[in-house]
């Protein structure tokens, strides 16, 4: 083991108790519909948390609240132990410096079900654009980073293609590369393989597994129970806007205690 690796492991040990995202009493309403009914969650550094649950249970809404695509109705969010949201009844109660929020938000990357690659940009441009215009990184450095992350997902040879000419699996891997080019500390995945043909699911899960092995903190909404069993440190079963059951993959997937969890697992397995 070389020295860098050793350091990484040591840091990892020291930091493994560090909270990366913490959510307290998170509620989210759309009009009169309460979609999230008080979620508490604490994700530690390097942890991989898989969220499973029936459609409509609020999984996407939870992820979207975490990276501010959606504003919560009430509750608190901490990113790396710093308060980024504190709201009650749709109003912000603690004024938080907006620069700090933007900075912390950059630590959260997201991968969507429908990839959402920018179709008018090549693969390379897709990966380079945010580091350049958001982080103001110069073109050469952005290029080098882009090539590096594309190599990681095995798609450097496709750098000059437009997204439409790639398979779904390749598009999703580019989307992952695009997110990690921003060097996030936490990655959110919202059903990253649900839009894929079955034969393309494996390559994306493989890429995610490799990412998890590098120590990335990940929150993954997925129906891929096999992936959750193998990669997750913790599995959360959500139903009707609450966390119904959580624990290690062995407990939640193999020995679910709650009836609703059992019923759900029976349905999808």
């Amino acid at each position, binding site marked *: 083991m070389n020295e860098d690796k050793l350091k990484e492991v040591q840091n990892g040990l020291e930091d493994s108790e560090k909270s990366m995202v913490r959510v307290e009493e998170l509620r989210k309403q759309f009009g009169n519909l309460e979609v999230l009914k008080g979620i508490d969650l604490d994700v530690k550094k390097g942890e991989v948390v898989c969220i499973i649950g029936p459609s409509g249970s609020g999984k996407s809404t939870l992820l979207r609240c975490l*990276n*501010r*695509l959606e504003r919560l109705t009430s509750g608190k969010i901490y990113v790396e132990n710093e308060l980024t949201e504190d709201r009650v009844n749709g109003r912000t109660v603690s004024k938080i410096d907006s620069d700090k929020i*933007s900075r912390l*938000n*950059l630590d*959260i*990357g*997201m991968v*969507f079900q*429908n990839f*959402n*690659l*920018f*179709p*008018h*940009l090549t693969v390379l441009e897709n990966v380079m*654009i*945010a580091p350049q*215009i*958001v*982080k103001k990184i110069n073109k050469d450095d952005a290029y080098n980073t882009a090539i590096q992350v594309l190599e990681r997902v095995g798609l450097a040879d496709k750098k000059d293609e*437009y*997204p*439409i*000419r790639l398979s779904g699996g390749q598009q999703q891997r580019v*989307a992952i590369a*695009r*997110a990690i080019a*921003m060097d996030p500390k936490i990655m959110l995945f919202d059903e990253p393989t649900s839009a894929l043909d079955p034969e393309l699911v494996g390559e994306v899960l493989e890429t995610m597994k490799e990412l998890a092995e590098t120590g990335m903190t990940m929150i993954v909404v997925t129906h891929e129970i096999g992936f959750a069993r193998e990669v997750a440190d913790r599995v959360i079963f959500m139903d009707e806007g609450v966390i119904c059951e959580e624990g290690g993959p062995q407990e939640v997937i193999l020995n679910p205690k709650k009836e609703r969890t059992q019923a759900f697992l029976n349905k999808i397995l």
Partner: protein
Amino acid sequence: MTQQQIQAIFDGTVITIEITAVSVVLGFILAMFVALGRLSKNRIIRGISWFYIWFFRGTPLLLQLFMVFYAVPIIYLDYTGQTLNMDPMVTSYITYTLNTTAYMAEIIRAAIESIPEGQMEAAKALGMTYGQAMRRIIIPQTYRRLVAPIGNELIILLKDTSLVSSIALSDLLRTTRTLANSSGSWLYYVYAAAIYLFMTTLLQLGTDQLEKRLGVYERR
């Protein structure tokens, strides 16, 4: 046809082209702002943009032309006590620009709204601001979708410039009518039709080409 007549028709055509070209370029730039105004979160900005479009689409172009040419000098006189002579060419630039802006703004707004929500979300998730996402992600994707409707607007605009004859500008149509009246020959109308068709055909071909080129990334 005499040399003089040919020159007159040529000059008329140039006026037609000038008004069209100036107002389409200025109009497109203004329309981008009005369209973004329509989509703004700020109610006042949205209201102003809405009012602008409502007014310029809801009144006849000829009326707008008269308002700038006749009404503006009267208003100016009332307020300053000085006379103002509106140059017909300047009047045309102003009126056609303002008018086409309203139509183009609606075209641009519709194109922006046709871009899937996920594009803005992905841009925001990468840390882009609304402005950055609009400039670099959303608006560039509208270009190909804009070509056909803007081309259409351009063709309508080109033909509508014939209204400037009512403020004494010798554009293509007015020149033709003068020549036809003085010579008693209907052939001049055929020449005019041919010239209009020639120009609109060029526009059609041009926009078709542009659309193809801008759509490169949409072909598998």
